[in-house]
């Protein structure tokens, strides 16, 4: 099971070759995973595009009967959900992010290749759940942001939203794991000399997006969990009759939703920052400010979510605060637009298809950004939100911004990924059709919105003045569809019989162009020292690029990349393939199916399979604590990659628990005349708290024993921690049972369900910790643990202490502050 060093290849074999179908199912190669994501997204793009066409046909005339209301509501929901979660995100992060990041920073793969594969298979599982409605039960139909309380079973009784909740939860886990992976990879696996300020801007964009993912998805997870519990377990988190407020969903959703749109915008910005300098033959203008503006945009984006809720009545103070923060975001965004134009200024332009799309993106995104400034002004937003004006706005930023960038990226990186060139003339034809079709479809929507046309309506009245523009948009949409057809023709023709691509077709500036097209599975044969920003350009032309200018003047072609043909000098250590990620995703799928069908055994089976496969991955690690390091990489010394990964995960968990705790505090006084928080018993819980605190002591003693090679005490302390954990869980079980007998069931009132959910999730974390420790204890008793594998104990310890720390917060805020109320 341990990975063996790969034999030296006699020639650079492309990563695409070899292994058969099984090879693709068990791959952990970031480039293959990128191709899986990309191919899947291209399929979903067709589906989402057809859904858009159906919408436009239905809106051709007032009172049109092409689609019924019921079908239309499913189609517009799926169009949005598909484009966001199954097209833009997987293309930007899953495909281009995965393929390029290790290449951009000079690494052989991402930090956690097996988790990378898991992210993909979970993505596919979630995508399948979202589309199961085609077969049976109906597709999700409450809009891509599914506002409660319309999503309660009472108002939406069908399977539609069951698929939606399960699909989104699985997709959420997939994305968070991906964000974690990218974050640790970029922080820890940059090559020697690749400082942050020398990284390609795309790497910066992915780094910042990863941080956003880690802190933005937890509120969505919590909101979806509440909805799931309402729909399946009879709770009332969003049921007004029990004192709940549907506004809770909106806050949780948009705390995720707004950073999410920046997760879609920032990688697009990164792509433009890569493409423009290459085709202008100039370095990116204002690199430091570009990096800082990415970070500032991300940070601010976490503070603007209320601008989606200006109409909900948050009060003038909140309205003003959110309006101001939303306007502030325009400043760093403007810096980027101007910097790109300044990059073009004075350059030597090569008008390729990729460059066309990048230039188009700059103008189109500006339009979208400016209509966004209008939305930021809250009173103006009250006329524009929920109308076709906002539909125009977000299509300009998401299509004009992200999609234009993605198409440009396809034209730019396709040669590297596939080893074939795309047809430039078809690309330019696609560009013109896209510009005409896109602007023709979406610019008039600004006016429809200003003329009062609300969004998400399956039909509209005659005599409202909307018919003509709707017709124009439908015609333009077909032109846009034609543009995409041209692209697919181009892709297929290239894949089948396109011209072979050289390693460096564009005279690129970054490291991916220094290796073959397509690259070998091990990426770099020899990793040279990174000597500056635009590392490959410096390799070719020297520091000041003066050689490059002289060669350009003399009309010479760029020099061939130095390491193109060379085989690796020493054995390359590559992560071994694994079938366990696929198994975990299958387990998750079975769990989801079991929940929807209502068959508990299926949930148990799925969970069991997933847990066993996860343990399997754990045992696949070559030699815990002894992971051989690639001698050519230069991760920051003294810190292990897996430790950073665990800390990043714990950071995300902070936001997860904060969302649960916030809900508890808001809902705790809605106890429908029941005992409420005074039912909480301090003496018993104090004892449990003490036990958990002491278990942390035992945990550090276990680690200390392991680190000094004391096998006896290592076993004793590990078992001790697990036992203390079980005692804690026993106390929780006793407490829950007592409350239940006193009349506080899960469904009784909002206090009860918020309490049980918060404390229950903490308990689940403890249970997972006990399981983890048990596995370690078994390893210790069978002699497989020991000093060389102390890191495994340390990682388990970090998790365990975190669970303890969360309990400290819960004990204080829930138990000791039981008499304190906020609302």
């Amino acid at each position: 099971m341990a990975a063996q060093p790969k034999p030296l290849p006699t020639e650079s074999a492309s990563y695409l070759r070899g292994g058969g179908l099984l090879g693709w199912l068990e791959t952990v190669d970031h480039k293959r995973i990128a191709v899986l994501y990309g191919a899947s997204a291209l399929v979903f793009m067709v589906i989402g595009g057809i859904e858009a066409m159906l919408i436009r046909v239905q809106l051709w005339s007032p009172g049109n009967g092409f689609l019924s209301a019921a079908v239309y509501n499913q189609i517009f929901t799926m169009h949005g959900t598909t484009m966001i979660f199954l097209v833009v995100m997987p293309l930007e992060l899953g495909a281009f992010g995965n393929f390029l990041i290790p290449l951009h920073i000079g690494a052989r793969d991402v930090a956690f290749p097996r988790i990378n594969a898991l992210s993909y298979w979970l993505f596919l599982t979630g995508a399948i759940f979202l589309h199961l409605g085609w077969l049976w039960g109906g597709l999700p139909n409450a809009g891509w942001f599914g506002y409660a309380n319309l999503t309660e079973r009472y108002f939406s009784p069908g399977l539609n939203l069951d698929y939606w909740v399960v699909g989104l939860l699985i997709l959420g886990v997939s994305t968070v794991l991906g964000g974690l992976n990218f974050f640790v990879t970029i922080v820890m696996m940059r090559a020697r000399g690749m400082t942050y300020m020398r990284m390609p801007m795309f790497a910066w964009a992915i780094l910042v997006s990863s941080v956003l993912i880690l802190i933005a998805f937890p509120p969505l997870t919590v909101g979806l969990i509440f909805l799931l519990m309402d729909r399946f377990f009879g709770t009332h988190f969003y049921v007004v009759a029990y004192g709940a407020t549907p506004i809770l969903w909106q806050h949780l959703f948009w705390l995720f939703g707004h950073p999410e749109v920046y997760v879609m915008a920032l990688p697009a910005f990164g792509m433009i920052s890569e493409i423009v300098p290459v085709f202008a033959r100039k370095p990116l203008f204002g690199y430091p400010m570009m990096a800082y503006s990415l970070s500032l945009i991300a940070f601010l984006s976490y503070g603007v979510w209320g601008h989606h809720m200006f109409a909900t009545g948050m009060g003038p103070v909140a309205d003003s605060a959110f309006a101001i923060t939303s306007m502030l975001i325009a400043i760093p965004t403007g810096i980027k637009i101007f910097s790109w134009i300044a990059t073009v200024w004075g350059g030597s332009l090569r008008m390729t298809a990729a460059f066309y799309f990048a230039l188009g993106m700059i103008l189109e995104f500006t339009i979208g950004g400016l209509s966004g400034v209008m939305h930021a002004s809250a009173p103006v937003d009250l006329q524009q939100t929920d109308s076709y004006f906002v539909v125009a706005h977000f299509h300009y930023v998401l299509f004009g911004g992200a999609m234009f960038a993605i198409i440009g990226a396809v034209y730019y990186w396709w040669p590297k990924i596939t080893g074939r060139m795309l047809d430039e003339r078809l690309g330019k034809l696609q560009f013109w059709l896209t510009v005409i079709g896109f602007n023709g479809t979406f610019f008039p929507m600004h006016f429809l919105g200003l003329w009062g046309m609300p969004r998400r309506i399956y039909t509209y009245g005659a005599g409202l003045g909307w018919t003509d523009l709707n017709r124009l948009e439908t015609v333009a949409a077909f032109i846009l569809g034609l543009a995409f057809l041209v692209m697919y023709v181009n892709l297929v023709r290239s894949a089948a019989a396109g011209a072979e691509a050289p390693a460096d077709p564009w005279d690129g500036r970054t490291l991916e162009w220094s290796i073959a097209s397509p690259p070998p599975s091990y990426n770099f044969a020899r990793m040279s020292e990174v000597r500056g920003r635009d590392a490959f350009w410096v390799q070719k032309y020297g520091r000041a690029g003066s050689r490059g200018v002289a060669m350009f003047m003399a009309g010479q072609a760029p020099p061939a990349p130095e390491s193109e043909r060379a085989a690796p000098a020493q054995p390359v250590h590559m992560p071994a393939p694994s079938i366990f990620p696929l198994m975990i995703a299958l387990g998750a799928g079975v769990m989801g199916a079991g929940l929807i069908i209502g068959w508990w055994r299926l949930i148990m089976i799925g969970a069991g399979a997933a847990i066993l496969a996860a343990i399997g991955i754990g045992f696949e690690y070559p030699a815990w604590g002894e992971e051989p390091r690639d001698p050519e990489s230069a991760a920051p010394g003294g810190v292990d990659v897996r430790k950073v990964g665990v800390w990043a995960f714990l950071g995300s968990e902070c936001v997860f628990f904060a969302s649960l705790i916030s809900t508890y505090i808001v809902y705790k006084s809605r106890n429908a005349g029941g005992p409420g928080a005074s039912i909480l018993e301090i003496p018993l819980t104090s004892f449990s708290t003490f036990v958990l605190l002491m278990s942390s002591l035992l945990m550090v003693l276990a680690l200390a024993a392991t680190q000094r090679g004391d096998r006896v005490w290592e076993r004793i302390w590990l078992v001790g921690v697990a036992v203390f954990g079980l005692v804690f869980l026993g106390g929780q079980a006793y407490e829950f049972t007592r409350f239940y007998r006193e009349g506080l069931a899960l469904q009784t009132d909002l206090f009860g369900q918020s309490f049980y959910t918060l404390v229950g999730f903490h308990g689940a974390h403890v249970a997972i910790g006990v399981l983890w420790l048990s596995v370690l204890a078994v390893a210790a008793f069978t002699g497989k643990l020991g000093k060389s594998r102390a890191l495994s104990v340390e990682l388990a310890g970090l998790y365990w202490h975190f669970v303890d720390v969360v309990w400290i917060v819960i004990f204080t805020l829930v138990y000791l502050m039981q008499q304190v109320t906020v609302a």
Partner: protein
Amino acid sequence: MTPLARRTIRRASGFLASRTMTAEPFARMNRLAAAAPLMAAALALAGCAASEPPMTTLAPKSDLAQWIYDLMVEVTAWDALIFLIVVVAFTLAVFFFSTRVGEAAPPSSVASDLALEAAWTIGPALVVLMISIPTVRTIFRSQPPVPPAGSLEVKVIAHQWWWEFHYAGSGIATANELHIPVGRPIRLALQSADVIHSFWVPQLGGKRDVVPGQINELTLAARVAGTYVGQCAEFCGLSHANMRLRVIVESPEQFALWAKLQQAAPTALSAANAAASDGARIFANSPCTTCHRIDGVSKGALAPDLTHFASRTTLAAGILPNTPESVARWIANPGAVKPGAQMPPLGLGANQVSDLAAYLESLK
């Protein structure tokens, strides 16, 4: 003058000549992209100049709508200025101040310019400041904590998929059509009976969501008499598209007259109107009474109050005109007109349906 500027101007004069001769496909694209908004603006103006769309936000008819409109114009002006700067800079960069591959001059490698970067950071920051001040002022002005003196208070209850109105103090209850006097502050207290809706009459102001479990407020004073169309603006289920409303703004005298008629008992049936009398009998003996209220006849509270049904201009929440044919069509099969409508078809014969319609049309 910075080296960049000097080099730029030197090359500009050299390039301008060649540029005007060259047919650059990209020039066409850029002109198209820049022209598109202008073309669309012309379209819009044409639309405005002709009959104004009934739900336009660009022809404010109340104080609230006017404040929002003024703010929107201000923000749009700043937006237009920034867009102009970006388009001009972009055009100059792509067409005039760069070379094409194969041409004589080498590319520069200028990658920073402190003055420039400061300018395009501080400039937008100032614009943000300029926009945020009137924004905050308008926010507070449009959300008075207490109703202005002399306000007419109306309770609005949103349902899937119709609007219920109760006038405070006078006991007037109606549906889907709101009458208000011009010039007097109106305070709408918005509540929902089921899911989240949004009350939006664009000519009278911005929208306000109607959220179950809380009471949201919308305050406005209409300035111009007329009939204004509104629509629910928050996706609320199957017939979200079919949840419209009308607001009739009239002089205080006309409003007082309307109010008096609404408070009066339903119009007595004349013996001559046989169909209506039959219809009244059918109504009283049918499940209609479970949901609908007609003063003196039935006490249903789940559906629109029909006491003065004939005084309204539309039915089914604004999607059908209030004519006997439409009423008959609605009664015969509500679900066909409004998917998901909670009113069931009663399985009545065509004669009975038209009698019912006649009865309802007599309720002025």
